[in-house]
C-alpha cells in the first residue's frame, strides 16, 4: 500500500435507528459506498433499526408523519396526506408503489445492499439491549453480526473519522 493510500484510509460509524423501507436506505447506501471507497465501516443497529438484521426482511413504509412525501404519478406528484394512512391497505399500497418505483429506477433492494455490506466486510453490531427489550433472538438475525452495547459503539466512534446517526 502506498503512503498516499494509508493517509486516505478513513473510518466511519453509523447508528441505525429506523427500520422502515425508506429509512433503511441511507445507512445501507452510505455503508456500502464507504466500504467501496476503502473506508472502514461499522453499523450499530439499535431500536427500530435492529430488525434490519433479521434474516427475512419484509420492510414497510407509512405515509403517516411524512408531509414531504410525494410520489411521481402520471407526470405529476401525488401528495400523501397523513389521514389516508388510517385507511386499511393504504400503507401496504404505498409500500408496493415505492418498491415498484425503486425497481423501475434501478435502485437496489435493501436485501441486495445488505448483502453487499456483508460482502465488503462492513462490521455490523446489534444492540444487545434492544435485542433483550424487544425479545429478538440472535438466531433470527443474519450471520456474521456481533452483539454489543453503547460502550462497544463508543469505542468504535471514538476512533472513527465520520460518525452518523440515522
Amino acid at each position, binding site marked *: 500500500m*502506498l503512503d*498516499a*493510500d494509508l493517509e*486516505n484510509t478513513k473510518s466511519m460509524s453509523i447508528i441505525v435507528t429506523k427500520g422502515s423501507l425508506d429509512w433503511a436506505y441511507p445507512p445501507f*447506501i452510505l455503508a*456500502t*459506498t464507504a466500504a*467501496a*471507497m*476503502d*473506508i472502514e465501516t461499522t453499523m450499530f443497529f439499535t431500536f427500530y433499526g435492529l430488525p434490519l438484521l433479521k434474516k427475512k426482511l419484509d420492510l414497510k413504509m407509512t405515509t403517516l408523519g411524512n408531509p414531504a412525501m410525494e410520489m411521481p404519478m402520471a407526470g405529476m406528484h401525488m401528495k400523501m396526506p397523513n389521514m389516508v394512512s388510517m385507511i386499511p391497505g393504504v400503507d401496504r399500497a404505498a409500500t408496493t408503489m415505492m418498491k415498484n418505483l425503486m425497481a423501475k*429506477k*434501478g*435502485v*437496489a433492494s435493501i436485501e441486495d445492499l445488505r448483502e*453487499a455490506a456483508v460482502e*465488503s466486510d462492513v462490521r455490523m453490531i446489534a444492540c444487545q439491549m434492544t435485542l433483550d427489550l424487544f425479545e429478538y433472538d440472535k438466531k433470527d438475525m443474519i450471520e456474521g453480526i456481533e452483539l454489543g452495547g453503547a460502550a462497544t459503539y463508543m469505542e468504535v466512534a471514538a476512533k472513527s473519522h465520520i460518525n452518523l446517526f440515522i
Partner: protein
Amino acid sequence: MAEHTLNAEGLNCPLPILKAKKMLKGMASGDILKISATDPGSAADFAAFCTHTGNELLNSATEGDLYKFEIKRS
C-alpha cells in the same frame, strides 16, 4: 495491461460504484476498467471515488444518455 468492461446502465446510486469496486478488486494494477452508466450522478461519483481511492480516472465523457468512464487500477 488487460482491459475490462462494466455495463452499469439502468443502475442507480450506489450500484455503479459498488459494481466497479468489485471489478477493480479482481483486476491487476495498471489494468483499465471501462464503464458505461445511465445514472447522471455517476459523473460526480466516479470522480469522487477515484480521488479517494487513488485509482486514476483516465476519461469521463457523456455520449447522449450514456456516461462513460475509464479507470486505471492503482
